């Protein structure tokens, strides 16, 4: 519990209307987009400036109060749940796009800017921020950076860390630091900025970011490729890449997901297909034409049953809408869904998918697979019910083996969601203890009182 007198202090710093303490408000900040992690904070504070955040951190540090930074609350690993109580530091009111520099292809933003708002604003200048976590309608830039988020476009464009030029950060002790700058090249001392990108809010609060932007490609095309065997779809991914085409996106939907999407909103996906791959090519029109032809040719050569090139934007949008609906299709179908986000080297996708199917049989659990096949980041999802103990235990065992398989194939636990609470127990098991020790020392150096988003990653 936080001393009553401190509430007055917080009110003095951010204004009375920006401090919430009613039981109802605390409940509304007890969750994020994960299913099972819930914990109420003692207070929710909405700062509007870096200085206010610094002052709050100083008090929290002196009083040893846990602080959980939070933006849109779309996290899917429990990272924004205040699991130790204390302060939720909510950045949603710091949502200004401060500057768009067309000459430098960069933008300066506050942490509470919602990605879709940024995308819409940048489009007016013919620019875009390539990393595209599919929570873009609610996800805020602070969280996107702290989680090093990615999405479908990462096969060609890379993840968030490749698009951050500079950061302003408030440390857990209240000091304000600036890392990086406004240039693409920067080798002045240790590359500390990347310790904060993917720190999951455990090292400091991101209060401002300088983003690297790209010009919007003038043309794009969508290709839907149908497979009778999902492993063949997995192979299709690396066959296209090794034959010299790097599409903007390559997404995978399995039979189960296709059928749920068709139930939700019939749009003519092939219901009998074992899997489909959705490709998007983008770039200058001539290149897009050529790359599209090449994808059609290669996928046909390597086992595709049917290849459809979307004839117009409407048809293309329809396919991408289906892909976006995939997530909802999965979550709407079971009381508890374990949706993971492992990543494997791309050549291992077919083997990994086969393994998932075997595990689904072995433990008799309902499983589906969708994901960003192009970068080897897949979302094997198990549908279960936490209230059905026997079934749930089997699901947990199956997921344990999925993680182990991912690592066995040379992959990682999390491609884009982060460790948070959801994967903490696997983290300890799979990471080198020496590396964990280094990470903990960095944490202790920056956050001596362990107040910054405690309970995440390794506890």
């Amino acid at each position: 519990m936080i001393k009553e007198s401190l509430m007055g202090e917080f009110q003095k710093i951010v204004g009375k209307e920006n401090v919430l303490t009613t039981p109802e408000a605390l409940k509304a900040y007890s969750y994020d987009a994960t299913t099972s992690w819930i914990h109420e904070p003692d207070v929710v504070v909405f700062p509007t400036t870096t200085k206010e955040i610094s002052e709050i951190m100083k008090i929290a540090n002196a009083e040893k109060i846990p602080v959980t930074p939070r933006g849109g609350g779309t996290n899917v690993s429990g990272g924004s749940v205040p699991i130790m109580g204390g302060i939720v530091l909510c950045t949603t009111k710091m949502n200004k796009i401060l500057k768009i520099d067309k000459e430098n292809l960069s933008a300066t933003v506050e942490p509470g800017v919602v990605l879709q708002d940024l995308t819409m604003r940048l489009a007016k200048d013919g620019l875009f921020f390539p990393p595209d976590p599919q929570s873009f309608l609610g996800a805020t830039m602070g969280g996107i950076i702290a989680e090093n988020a990615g999405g479908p476009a990462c096969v060609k464009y890379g993840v968030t860390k490749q698009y951050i030029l500079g950061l302003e950060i408030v440390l857990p002790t209240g000091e304000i630091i600036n890392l990086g700058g406004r240039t693409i090249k920067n080798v002045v001392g240790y590359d500390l900025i990347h310790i904060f990108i993917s720190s999951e809010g455990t090292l400091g609060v991101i209060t401002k970011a300088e983003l690297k932007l790209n010009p919007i490609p003038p043309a794009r095309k969508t290709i839907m490729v149908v497979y009778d065997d999902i492993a063949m779809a997995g192979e299709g991914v690396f066959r296209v890449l090794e034959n010299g085409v790097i599409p903007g996106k390559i997404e995978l939907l399995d039979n189960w997901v296709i059928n749920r999407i068709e139930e939700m909103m019939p749009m003519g996906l092939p219901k009998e297909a074992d899997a489909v791959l959705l490709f998007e090519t983008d770039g200058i029109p001539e290149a897009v034409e050529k790359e599209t032809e090449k994808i059609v040719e290669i996928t046909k050569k390597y086992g595709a049953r049917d290849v459809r090139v979307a004839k117009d934007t409407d048809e293309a949008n329809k396919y991408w809408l289906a892909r976006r609906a995939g997530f909802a299709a999965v979550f709407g179908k079971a009381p508890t869904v374990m949706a993971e986000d492992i990543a494997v080297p791309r050549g291992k996708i077919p083997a990994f998918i086969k393994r998932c199917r075997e595990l689904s049989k072995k433990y008799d659990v309902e499983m589906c697979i969708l994901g960003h096949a192009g970068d080897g980041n897949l979302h094997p999802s198990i549908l279960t019910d936490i209230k059905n103990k026997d079934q749930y235990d089997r699901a947990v065992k199956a997921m344990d083996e999925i993680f182990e398989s991912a690592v066995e194939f040379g992959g990682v636990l999390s491609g884009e969601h982060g460790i948070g609470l959801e994967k903490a127990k696997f983290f300890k098991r799979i990471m080198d203890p020496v590396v964990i020790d280094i990470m903990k020392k960095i944490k202790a150096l920056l956050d001596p009182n362990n107040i910054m988003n405690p309970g995440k990653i390794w506890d």
Partner: protein
Amino acid sequence: MEDLKELKKVEKYVDQCMKCGFCTFFCPVYQEERVETSVARGKNYLAKLALRGEQQFTDELGKIIGKCLLCKRCSANCPAKAQIDRVVVGARAQMVKNKGLGFIKNLVFRKVMANRKAFGNYVRLARAFQWLLPKTEGKIRHLPDFLKALGQGRNIPEIAKVFLRDIVKEMNKPQDGKEPKMRVGFFMGCATDFVYPELGLKVIDFLTKRGIEVIVPKGQSCCGAAIYFSGDFETGRMLADENVKAFKDVDYIVTACGTCSSTLKDYQKYLPDNEEQQKRYEAFEKKVKDSTEFVIDVMKIPPEEFKLKKEFEGKVATWHDPCHLVRYQNIKDQPRAILKGLKGLKYVEMPNADLCCGMGGSFSVYHYDITKKIAGKKMDGIKATGADIVVTACPGCMINLIDNVLQNKMPQKVYHLLELVE
């Protein structure tokens, strides 16, 4: 444990939410406040806890579920198809049951509006004192909120000198003297009745000119929107039954108010307490048509056959989608077809045409500051079109649009779609 009967009726929607937070992008209130209790996800989570007995029906909960426009943007864009607007209304109904209507403080609705005659007299009284209020150019057309909105700096438009109920005939035969093609019951709605009687006469003339018999039953009541959306289902049912009774011998029930048509259709969704009521309201729903829908889908008038009134020739028009048309009834193509078909009028689509204007019935009475901010975004869309006239088909929206056009010193005039045609 508190009574949870009303909330239980919407439990299936409560469970559908997967907390993804996408509703934050679409919620006009969240967009202004950026606080979780403003948005569907937060409200739904509290409803979930209430169902588990972990959240009491506190005043604070009342305030939270009260702060919703019921614009349905969250539901329309929800990837899990969770209908959280239904949860909000269900929670309000539960609140009214458990705590009384006091939490919304809208006793005026129950006491005055539910009594058609008293309401009329009340409005007459208001008219007599109208000269005390600031003069405006537009007209107010949605009375439930008028009385409470005074004193907040809102532009209060003029109330009609003679109400439609006083001048309209109960039976209006087809003008050609032939056997009627069909019998239509005209539902006036407060706005058309008290503020805009000429619109009512206009619609009746339009229909009778085309071989339709129009009956305006004296027994009709208020549609009940402000009442049952506030959670007072008991009074809502009373009004619903009066209307069902008043319109029992017609082929269709037509109204020129988008909120009324949606409210009448949705009795079957919100109000039934038993199977008999369910059946009765469902049968009623099938006969209700919004005027914009009726002329296109039922009368099947080709859009190019509508004739523009002289005074609108050469004007540029844009269309505002009322929430109760576009999302409650999926009516969006019909009005656009009419506007695009009108020779002499140039139609321009506004950006975010389906964005709520911010009125939300009684919402704007209690949260006028938020209403103004939301309306500000609507005004930006209107400005971007360069239109001379803003056309819509819901008097609730019209009040708010008129108010904000004036406050922003914009040149646009606001009209009901049917005011434009001969």
